[in-house]
Each structure stands twice: as C-alpha cells, then as structure tokens.
C-alpha cells in the first residue's frame, strides 16, 4: 500500500500565475510521456517482473513518479490559480475551462485526454525495460522542450530542471536493472534432475506421454520400454 506524505518532493514557489505555461506543462501530467503514464507503466510492469532488482526498481521509481505527478499537478494549479476565465481563454485554455474548469485534468498539451495506449506492458522483461528506458528519455526530452518554452519564468524552470534531472537518474537505474536481467537470461543453466532411467519396470505416469505414445526423451531412455516410459 501507499502512505501519503503531506509534502512535495521539491518545493514549488510560483510568484505569479501564468496560464500560458500551464497549457504546455499539463502534458507532463496526462500526456503520452507524462508522469501518470510513467507511474502506471512501471507499477503495472512490476507484477510479473522475474528479477528481484528490476522488481524493486519498478516499484520504487513508479512510486517516485506518483510524487512527480503531484508536483506537475501542483505546478499547473498554481499557474492557473485565481486567473479569470477571460484570461484563461486568452492563454488558449478556453476549451479546457469549458470542460474542466480549474481542475487539473490528465491530458496532453494538444488536449488529448490520457490514454493507456502509452503504457506498453509487453509481458517480456527485456522488452518492458527497454520501453522504460525510452520512456525516461522521452520524458527528459519533453522537459527540455518545456524549459525552452518557459524561459521567462525562472521559478517554473527551476522545478522543470529538477524533474528533468530525475528522469536522467531513472534512466541510469533502469539501465542497470536491464543489464542484470540480460546477464541472468544469458547464463548457461545446468539442471540436475532426479534420474529414473535405470529403474526396472518403471511405468510412465505422465498422461500426455502414455496416451499419445510419445516420449520427448526417447533418445535418453535406455530402459527398453519405449512405448510406456518417458524417462
């Protein structure tokens, strides 16, 4: 379960509202490379992740992304707080105000509502972690574009720089987790099975093998009972 901590991961100090910037920044709330998508992607992938380090990193980065979701939401809220509808419309948020008022709604900068299509949970540890690495890079690139657009407001840039930096750290950690998973998968496995080959009169209890009269290990078997025995 999660516990709420009544504080932001990094403080947000906004001196004046600026709805024009809020319209761009909301993309990191519910856009295709936003924090909502990131947290849900990692937290959904962790259930079937077979590697213990990768499992932990998905859980913990997914949790931190929830904190970032709150930060981006707070940023959007503070940039639009107390702004009259006319000013919102002038900043290009007229359509947004019509549907959502002054709530923070998960959507992209272009107005597309949040779509779980951006999550990508493939049921394959390597594919998933590669997806996560790409997601962190896309989020970093988005923050850089936002920093370009918000240059005139140093308070906003300060928060965006912090969030961008965290994406770089997450990329590093996912890279280490992927390396661990790949090393594990590349290992040559050596199995020691209980040997029943020499047992006299051993009858196969495997329904599939006896019914189909098929033995996948015929070549290994030297008990001279090929029709019934499978090992």
């Amino acid at each position: 379960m999660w516990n709420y901590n009544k504080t932001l991961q990094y403080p947000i100090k906004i001196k004046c509202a600026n709805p024009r910037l809020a319209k761009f920044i909301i993309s990191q709330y519910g856009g295709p490379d936003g924090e909502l998508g990131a947290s849900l992607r990692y937290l959904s992938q962790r259930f079937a992740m077979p590697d213990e380090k990768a499992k932990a990193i998905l859980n913990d980065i997914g949790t931190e992304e929830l904190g970032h979701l709150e930060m981006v939401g707070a940023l959007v809220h503070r940039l639009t707080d107390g702004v009259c509808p006319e000013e919102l419309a002038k900043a290009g948020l007229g359509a947004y105000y019509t549907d959502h008022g002054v709530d923070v709604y998960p959507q992209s900068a272009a107005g597309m509502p949040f779509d779980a299509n951006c999550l990508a949970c493939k049921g394959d540890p390597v594919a998933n972690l590669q997806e996560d690495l790409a997601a962190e890079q896309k989020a970093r690139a988005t923050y850089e574009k936002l920093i370009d657009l918000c240059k005139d407001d140093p308070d906003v840039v300060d928060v965006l720089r912090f969030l961008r930096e965290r994406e770089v750290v997450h990329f590093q950690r996912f890279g280490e987790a992927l390396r661990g998973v790949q090393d594990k998968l590349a290992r040559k496995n050596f199995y020691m099975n209980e040997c029943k080959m020499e047992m006299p009169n051993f009858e196969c209890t495997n329904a599939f093998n006896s019914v189909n009269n098929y033995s996948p290990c015929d070549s290994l078997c030297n008990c001279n009972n090929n029709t019934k025995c499978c090992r």
Partner: protein
Amino acid sequence: MLEDMNENRNCGCTCVCPCEQEPECECKEAIRRDMMMQLRAYYFSINDLALYLDTHPDDEKALCLHREYAKKARELSDKYQKLYGPLTISYPCRKWRWLEEPWPWERGSF
C-alpha cells in the same frame, strides 16, 4: 497548556498528546520553512539512495549513508510533526490537525 488539553478531553483514555505549541516569535514561519527544507533534503537523499541500492545492494557506503539519513529524517520529522501537525495520517495526535492548510499543492505551502 498540554495538561489542560489532556484534562479537557472526553474520550476517557489516558494517552498523552505529543503535540506542542508552536514557537511564538516573529520568525516562526521561517523556522518552519527551514525545517521543512531540511526534511525534504533528507527524504530526497533517502529516496535517491534507495533507488541506487536497488541495483547496488552490496554497496556498504551507500547503505551507511541511507542509515544515517533515515535516522536524521526520523528525528527531524518527529520534531516537525510535534510542532506543525502530522505529515502522515499515522502520526498520533489528540486534535485532528491533518485538516490544517496549506496542503502541499496550495499557495503558501511549506
């Protein structure tokens, strides 16, 4: 003051409220802000070290730092919550101070 509060309650229990009165001075907001800033720095360090330790669980130096910051964060968060109210809903308090504003996303938050 604390004793008054304990005497006036009507729940009949004998638990002691850990809350203290806020320091009455002009700079109390600055003190709170500084404490919160320090606490956030500890939380950040703990989180960043935790991510690092997830992929480097045998790094003794990181583990040692994590222990140090976890201890400092616990001490400071106890002190902060006694003065300014709970940071999590599991902090015990006789008066339900969880409702106190500002929330982290609001103007004037610490």
